[in-house]
């Protein structure tokens, strides 16, 4: 019922179907783990290059086994449990962090031929199916729901540690993640408008039929998605969650051994998932030219891999380049810039859709739409400026009063 969009599950379920589904889930799980291992190495190596260092070089060729070595080391370290920790929640939190990261990847189509109006089905053991673990009709909402659940891991880890810095880190983290989730959701909503579906598979099919959503939605939602996604991942320049100068290690300060490794894994797994979702929503997923007919099934996988790598590179590049935001700047950017911009752009695209439906002339509609948006933006920025000026004035007056009373005391 839930997965009915996949041709594999349409006519009855027998043992082969069950085995294929299990195989897909198993392969996705294993591939994700290996990918995480390689991405951690990739980030360390790339950031070393950008900082004129060598980076991991001893474990395996080019240090490629470094993550494995680190993992084994962490696994054998002592697992500390703070005295004031809430035992059950402390143990539960890493899993709440890592499970959504795994499950969210299930809705990403990683392969299948979408060129020339292809619908992306591949044949597997004589059955035709999609190259994704699941294709729920509410696909992208499912992703948003899981990223909402992922907040719990961070939040409860900080709270259950029973110590100050983790608590402050987790309060920061949850506020940041909730704030940017709104912008993320609004940016994705524009994609729904242009694709007319919530299912990731349908979104990819729609993009191969016309043009990639990054152009169809006019680039702005893509930019908002990238910024909000980086903040949602707690990656630099939005890594206030673990600002070591202020918070020691943030929410996972008290974690050690394998539990710490789980947080570390889920962070990088989220990075991969976010890149894959961005590729699916805006860059046509695995769509791309089929260059040779001999091994045609490899090409979609190759294009998907290439696009995801571009995003991963960008995330590492951002980390090497940009300094960390201050907390008030972070909140200003999220609430006063990204959310209004995403909402305004959503309204503009919806207006254009309606205009196309009703056969209104395009150019006047665009001009009026942009004028209305500009009016709204200037109203908003005026309100923000006025509030800021008032607050400054109030602060000044407050300072004057305390200064006055202090001098009065001095005279008496």
């Amino acid at each position, binding site marked *: *019922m*839930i997965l*009915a969009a996949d041709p594999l599950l349409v006519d009855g379920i027998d043992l082969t179907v069950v085995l294929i589904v299990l195989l897909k889930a198993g392969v996705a799980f294993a591939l994700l783990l290996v990918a995480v291992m390689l991405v951690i190495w990739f980030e360390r190596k790339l950031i070393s290059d950008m900082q004129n260092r060598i980076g991991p070089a001893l474990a395996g060729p080019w240090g490629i086994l470094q993550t494995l070595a680190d993992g084994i080391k962490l696994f054998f370290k002592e697992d500390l449990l703070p005295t*004031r*920790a*809430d035992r059950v*929640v402390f143990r539960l939190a890493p899993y709440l962090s890592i499970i959504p990261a795994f499950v969210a990847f299930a809705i990403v189509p990683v392969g299948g031929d979408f060129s020339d109006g292809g619908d992306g089905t591949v044949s597997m053991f004589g059955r035709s199916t999609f190259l994704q673990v699941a294709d*729920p*009709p*509410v696909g992208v*909402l*499912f992703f*948003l*729901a899981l990223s*909402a*659940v992922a*907040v*719990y891991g961070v*939040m*409860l880890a*900080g*709270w*259950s540690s*029973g*110590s100050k810095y983790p*608590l402050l880190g*987790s*309060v920061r983290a*949850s*506020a940041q993640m*909730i704030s940017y*989730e709104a912008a993320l959701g609004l940016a994705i909503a524009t994609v729904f408008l242009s694709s007319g579906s*919530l299912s990731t598979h349908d979104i990819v099919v729609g993009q191969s039929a016309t043009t990639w959503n990054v152009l169809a939605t006019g680039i702005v939602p893509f930019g908002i998605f990238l910024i909000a996604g980086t903040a949602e991942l707690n990656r630099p320049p939005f890594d206030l969650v673990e600002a070591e100068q202020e918070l020691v290690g943030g929410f996972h300060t008290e974690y050690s051994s394998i539990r710490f490794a789980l947080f570390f894994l889920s962070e990088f797994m989220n990075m991969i998932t976010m890149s894959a979702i961005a590729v699916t929503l805006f860059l046509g997923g695995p769509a791309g030219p089929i260059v040779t007919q001999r091994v045609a099934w490899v090409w979609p996988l190759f294009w998907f891999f290439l696009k995801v790598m571009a995003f991963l590179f960008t995330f590492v590049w951002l980390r090497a380049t940009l300094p960390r935001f201050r907390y008030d700047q972070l909140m200003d950017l999220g609430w006063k810039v990204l959310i209004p911009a995403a909402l305004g752009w959503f309204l503009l695209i919806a207006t254009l859709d309606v205009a196309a439906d009703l056969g209104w002339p395009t150019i006047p509609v665009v001009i009026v739409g942009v004028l209305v948006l500009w009016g709204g933006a200037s109203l908003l920025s005026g309100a923000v400026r006025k509030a800021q000026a008032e607050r400054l004035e109030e602060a000044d007056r407050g300072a004057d009063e305390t200064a006055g009373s202090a001098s009065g005391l001095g005279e008496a």
Partner: protein
Amino acid sequence: MSTPAIFAAVTGFDPLTGGEFLVAQNIAFAIMAITMLVSAVRMVTTGNVVHAALYLVIVLAGAAGIFILLGAEFVGVTQVLVYIGAIVVLFLFGIMLTKGSFGADDGVGGERRGIAAMVGALVLAVMAAALLDTFRDAELSRAEPSLTADVADLIFSRYIVPFEAISVLLLAALIGAIVVARGD
């Protein structure tokens, strides 16, 4: 709440679907319903506010699961997105910002337990009466899962006035909260 499921499991006859007996659905429903009941009871008896919020999460997740079991995926996922992902997170956020209590019991509950139980019983009675009154003879249609597009069409055509009224109400609540918090 799980009486129909138990009844169906015992007798092999499900009154909700007019005789057809759905084994897997009934077992899933029974598991979710029992989990929800136990968590709901634990939620009001536990002494730790954060634990209570976590038990509430389990209850809400169970409700989402039951929606999905009924084929209402959109409602189920929205339940997770809104209730678990936003509302309870804000509860936890509030608890951490105001008390920041670590681990130990906060000594919640006690003095007003009787009144709370009375209010709970009253709400239960009202809801039970309303549900029985509306769905007494209704047969559960299990023809098709409800599609997101259908839900959207209904919201923006037949139920447009209640929908807009709720939006305005939420906006008013939001502005009210800001006014109260600023105190001027």
